[in-house]
């Protein structure tokens, strides 16, 4: 699971309604008719923005403009249902097209190295912040905000100075930066990016696009966000796994990997590749896994069509090997997989665990290989997968 990104229209709505951030007028459309109606209501040229959680929407053609309601309907019918980088467009955000005078950048992010919140501003916006940093570092300012003491006026002054705005807009920019910082803290955000922040021809300062990521660990205090978070299809399995208490990541190969503990799962994945195999996924059943969890994990791994062999690498510490073995046996008995299972079980109650597995595998008709080290297991799994 990745940090949770909110769809643009939701992020904008939250920032506008709760924090007073100025955003373009706009509404969500799910049909061409709705898009036309919104364009009609706005009474001017519009931008139709596909509500998908991928970067580079503009370049990919997922953001288009229309100068009349009829054109808005036509563009909407072209965008809705289309797939960009694996994401289906189900909603469009139709908003007024701004008359852009200048594009700026304001962002807040978590700085894990400095253990602080980074306030980043740039007098040039509209592109990736890393790109700005590379091409014109002199336009970028990065300030470290101490999480215990927060944002002070001198931070805001320096940031606004960097934006080099005329006086009235400079005041507005100060208000915006304070509002964004407040949102960052209150929403448990990991990243808030207003890019571009547009200075319009009529002198308004408007958040033309917003990216907002919230910390999934903090959702317990943001129940209201849970209902608005939309999961992409690619994340569906990962999401399902996390609801079962499993950490799961899909990869490209054909060796299914199941281990306990994140580090161990990563090490197993690396080892499989090192001996010539190709990992199909990463599945961590966590510490202290019960037989029930193991059973569900096996079920999940078997939903992968590309998996040709499963390698289970369990180091029982808190997790008891006999418990894991029972889970494996129950799962295999119920699912009767047609692919081989390579199982390495070591640690707490190892003998009992291995005995349970060996007894079951005899006469089960299933291809179960019990190995004693992870190296041996990885090699065998890679070999059975046939590259």
């Amino acid at each position, binding site marked *: *699971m*990745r*940090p949770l990104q909110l769809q643009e229209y939701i992020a904008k709505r939250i920032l506008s309604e709760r924090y007073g951030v100025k955003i373009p007028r706009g509404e969500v459309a799910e049909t061409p008719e709705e898009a036309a109606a919104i364009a009609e209501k706005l009474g001017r040229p519009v931008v139709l923005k596909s509500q998908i959680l991928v970067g580079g929407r503009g370049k990919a053609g997922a953001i288009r403009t229309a100068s009349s309601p009829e054109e808005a309907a036509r563009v909407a019918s072209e965008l809705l249902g289309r797939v960009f980088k694996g994401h289906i467009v189900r909603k469009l955000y139709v908003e007024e097209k701004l008359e852009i005078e200048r594009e700026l950048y304001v962002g807040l992010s*978590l700085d*894990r*190295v400095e*253990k*602080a*919140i980074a306030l980043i501003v740039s007098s040039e916006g509209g592109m990736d912040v*890393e790109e700005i940093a590379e091409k014109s570092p002199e336009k970028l300012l990065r300030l470290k905000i*101490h*999480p*215990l003491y927060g944002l002070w006026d001198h931070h805001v002054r320096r940031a606004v100075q960097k934006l080099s705005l005329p006086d009235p807009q400079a005041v507005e920019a100060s208000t915006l930066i304070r509002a964004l910082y407040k949102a960052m*803290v209150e929403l*448990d955000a*990991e990243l808030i990016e207003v890019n571009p922040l547009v200075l319009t021809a009529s002198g308004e300062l408007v958040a033309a696009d917003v990216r907002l990521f919230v*910390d999934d*660990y*903090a959702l*317990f*205090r943001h129940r209201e966000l849970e209902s608005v978070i939309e999961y992409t299809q690619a994340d569906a399995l990962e999401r399902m796994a996390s609801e079962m208490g499993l*950490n799961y*990541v899909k*990869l490209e190969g054909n060796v299914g990997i199941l*281990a*306990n*503990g*994140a*580090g*161990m*799962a*990563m*090490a197993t*994945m*690396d*080892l499989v*590749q*090192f001996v010539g195999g190709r*990992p199909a996924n*990463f599945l*961590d059943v966590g*510490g*202290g896994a019960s037989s029930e969890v193991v059973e569900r994990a096996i079920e999940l791994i078997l939903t992968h069509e590309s998996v040709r062999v499963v390698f289970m690498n369990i*180091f*029982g*510490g*808190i997790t008891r090997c006999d418990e894991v073995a029972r889970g494996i046996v129950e799962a295999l008995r119920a699912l009767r997989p047609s692919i081989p299972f390579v199982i390495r079980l*070591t*640690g*707490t109650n190892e003998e009992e665990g291995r005995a349970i597995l060996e007894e079951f595998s005899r006469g089960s008709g299933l291809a179960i290989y019990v190995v004693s*080290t*992870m*190296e041996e297991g990885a090699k065998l799994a890679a070999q059975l997968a046939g590259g």
Partner: protein
Amino acid sequence: MVVLVNESTRVVVQGITGRQASFHVRRMLDYGTKIVAGVRPGKRGERVHGVPVYDSVEEAVKETGANASIIFVPAPAAPDAFMEAVEAGLDLVVVITEGIPVHDELKMYWRAKESGTIMIGPNTPGVLSVGVAHLGIMPTGAFSRKEGGGVGVVSRSGTLTYQVCQYLSRLGVGQTTVIGVGGDRITGLDFVDVLEMFEEDEETKGVLLIGEIGGTMEEEAAKFIARGFEKPVVAYVAGVTAPPGKKMGHAGAIIEGRRGTAESKIKAFEEAGVPVGRTPLEAAELVKRALESRMK
């Protein structure tokens, strides 16, 4: 000698009445750890495996002289438990809890810094002074001590540490202190802090660093070692095959943009003269070799 915890460390267990805590308290007691008190608001007077329970950390400290704590409190209440421990004046706080919001972790980190409290974790398997005391949830059977010293181990991952240490034990390499710094993005201790501790400890003859993708803790450690670390160091880095942008189980194990890849970490170590094992077994073998050539 060992670092961080020893036979005189007096431990209070926060959230002692929970199922997990109670299980691990038994194991820690059996290992010889001096657990002197437990805390669970509203449960004063109860006992867990003979350990008296108090309503607050302050009370526990006053009545038992505790100087360290281990936190098993669930994520929503764990930051509060941590602040309470710091305010009660404890020297060392081990935060086992997983899933603490990162903004809370930032506050915990700086609060600890300000008060001089050492925070281990969050999301850590704890700290094990092999054969002496255990403040954590590690399967102690995988670890072994050896006369004349051994290797100090510091890691971002639990199970992987157990695995590598089991290999070390089988190869006859003893461990002195094993420290899990935690799998989250913000951790109380980083590798450099622990390297400094191991440098001071006479019994620790070498160091094994177990890193993973995400952040720059490994690169910082490599820089520190290159400046002239006296003892041999070996590293292992998990996540060579991890795709960018995905959280690999740990909140801290995520490749962010172009940063935090296993490749850059391995390169940093190798440039600092630190051998990097490509597999957990190879890492253990490299440690054995490094210590042996040191003895000669």
